[in-house]
C-alpha cells in the first residue's frame, strides 16, 4: 500500500465525521419534521461510507457490499416510516413544526 492511500482513508474518515456532525446538528437544531429526516439521511451517507471503507481496508469488500445493501434497505424503510409519521402529524396540526410535539413532557 502506498502512503497516498492511507491518506485517502484518513480523509474519508474525516469527511465522514464532518458529515455526521452536520447531520446531527441539523437533527438537533431544525424545527421542520422533514428536515430532521434529511439530517438523518446525511448522517447515514457517512455511515454507509464507513462500512465500505472498512471493507476496503481489510480486503473484504464483498462482505462490506452485503452489509451496505442491507443497510440501504433498512434506511429506506425507516425513511418511509418517518415520513409517514410526519405526514400524519401534518394532518393533525396543519404544519410540520416540531414545536407542536410538546404534549408529552415532565
Amino acid at each position, binding site marked *: 500500500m502506498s502512503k497516498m492511500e492511507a491518506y485517502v482513508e484518513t480523509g474519508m474518515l474525516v469527511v465522514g465525521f464532518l458529515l*455526521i456532525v452536520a447531520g446531527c446538528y441539523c437533527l438537533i437544531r431544525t424545527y421542520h419534521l422533514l428536515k430532521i429526516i434529511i439530517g438523518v439521511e446525511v448522517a447515514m451517507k457517512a455511515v454507509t461510507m464507513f462500512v465500505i471503507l472498512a471493507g476496503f481496508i481489510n480486503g473484504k469488500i464483498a462482505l462490506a457490499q452485503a452489509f451496505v445493501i442491507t443497510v440501504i434497505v433498512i434506511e429506506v424503510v425507516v425513511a418511509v416510516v418517518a415520513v409517514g409519521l410526519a405526514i400524519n402529524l401534518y394532518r393533525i396540526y396543519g404544519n410540520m413544526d416540531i414545536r407542536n410535539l410538546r404534549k408529552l413532557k415532565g
Partner: protein
Amino acid sequence: MQVIESSTVLIFAVPLVIFLINSLFSKRLAEKFSMGLAYVAPITQIVATAACFVQIAHLKQHDIIISWDLAGAVSMRFAVHTYSLVFLFCIALVSLASIMVANRTVPQKRTGFASLLMMLILGMNGIVMVTDLFSLYVFLEIVGISSFVLIAMFKSETGLEGAFKYLVMSVLASIMILTGLAFIFMQTGSLQYDHLEASALAGQSPTQLVLIYAAMILMIAGFAIKTGAVPFHSWLPDAHQSANTAVSVLLSGIVIKVAGIYGLIVITGFFGKLPGIKLTLFIMGTISIIIGALFALRQSHFKRIVAYSSVSQMGYILLGLSTVSMLGLLGAVAHVFNHATFKSTLFTNAAAVHEQTGTYDINELGGLEKKMGVTSFSSLAAFMSTAGIPPFAGFWSKLLIIMALWSSGARVFAAIALFASIFTAAYFLRLQRKVFFGKLRDQLAGITEIGGSVKLAQIMLTVVTIAAGLLFPFALLYFRGIGLL
C-alpha cells in the same frame, strides 16, 4: 439437538405464518380472528423454550449452535444458550400478556396490531439468537420499526408524537451502533461472534485499539438509547406513556431489554475488559437509578410513573452488567426476567384501571382496593417485587447484583444501589396509596373489577412473580446442580 433445531424453526416460523395468514384472509375475517390466532405464537414459543431448556439441561451444554441450510450451502447460524432462553421465555410471556390486554384495549385495527406484533416477536427472537453483530443490528431495526408503527398506528395526537420522538432517538442510536460496527469491522475484519472472541484485543496496544475504543463509546451510547438509560432516557416515558397500553406492556416489559440490554450484554462480553467500560456502566447505572426514581416521584400519570420506574430499574441491570463478572451477569439476567414480569403486571394494571375508570391521572383515583381487588393485589405484589422486598423475586436479583458489585470492589455503588431501593419504594407507595388505598371517591362508586383476559393476564403474571420469588433459590441451586451456571 433435533429438539432444539425444530424448536428454533417453530420460534421463527410460527409468527411468519401467522403474519401470512393475516394478510391472506379477507379483511373482515382477519379482523375477527387475527387476535385469537396471535395467541398461538407466544404459546408455541413458551413450549419450544421449555423443550429447548429440557434438552440443554439434558446435554449439560451451555451453548448450542444451530445451522440451517435452506439454499444448499451451509448458511444460517443461530445460537441457543441459557441466557437467550431466559430472554426468549420473557419475550413469549410478555407478548402473551400484551395480547391479553390488547383483547380489551385494541377495539379496531386488530389485524394490524397482530401482524406488527408478529414482526416484533420475530425481531426480538432474532436479536437473542443471531451469531453475528451485523445481523443483530438488522433485527434491532426490525424491532425498532415495528415498535414505532405499533405506537403510531392508532393515530392519536400523543401516539404520533411519542412514536416520532422514539424514532428520531432510535435513528440516532442506529447511526452510532452502525458506525461502531463499521469500526469493529475495520479493526477485526469480521463481525461474527466466534471470530470476535478469537481475534479481539489479542496483543494490541491502546494506540492500535483506538477504533475499538471509538466503537465501544458509540455502541454503549447507542444501546443505552435503546435501553433508555439516563441521559439517553428522554424518549422512553413519552413513548411508553403515549402508546396503547397493550403496546406499553411490550415496550417496557421486553423491548427495551432485548434491544438495549441484550446488545450491551453481547458487546461487554467481548470488550468489557477494556479499561473505562466498567466505570462508564457504573456511572450510567447509578445515575439512571437515581434520576429515574426522582422523575417517577413527581409524575401524576399512572403509565408515566411506571415508565420512569423502568428507567430506574434499567439502572440496576446496567450495574449488574458493569461488573463484567458471572455473578453480575446472572443478577442482570435475573433482573431482566423479574422486570419483565412485574413491569408487564403494572402496565396491565394501568390498562385495567383506565378501562374501568377512564383516567390515568392518579390524583383523580383513590380507594380502588375495595372495588378492584385483583388489580390492587397484583399491583402490590409487583411493587414489592420492584422495591426488592423479600421474598419477592426482585429481592433476589437485586441481592445478586449488589453482591456482584460488592465482590467486584465497587462498594460505593453497591451501597448506592441498596439505598436507592428506598426511592423505588417511595414512588410506588405513592402510586399505590393514591390509586388503591384511602377513601373511595364518590364518582368512582360504580366501578367494578375488570374481567376477561385482562384479569387472566394479571393473575398469570402475579403468579409468575410470586412463584419466581419463592422458587428463586431453588432454581439457582438447580441450575448449579445441572452445571449450567
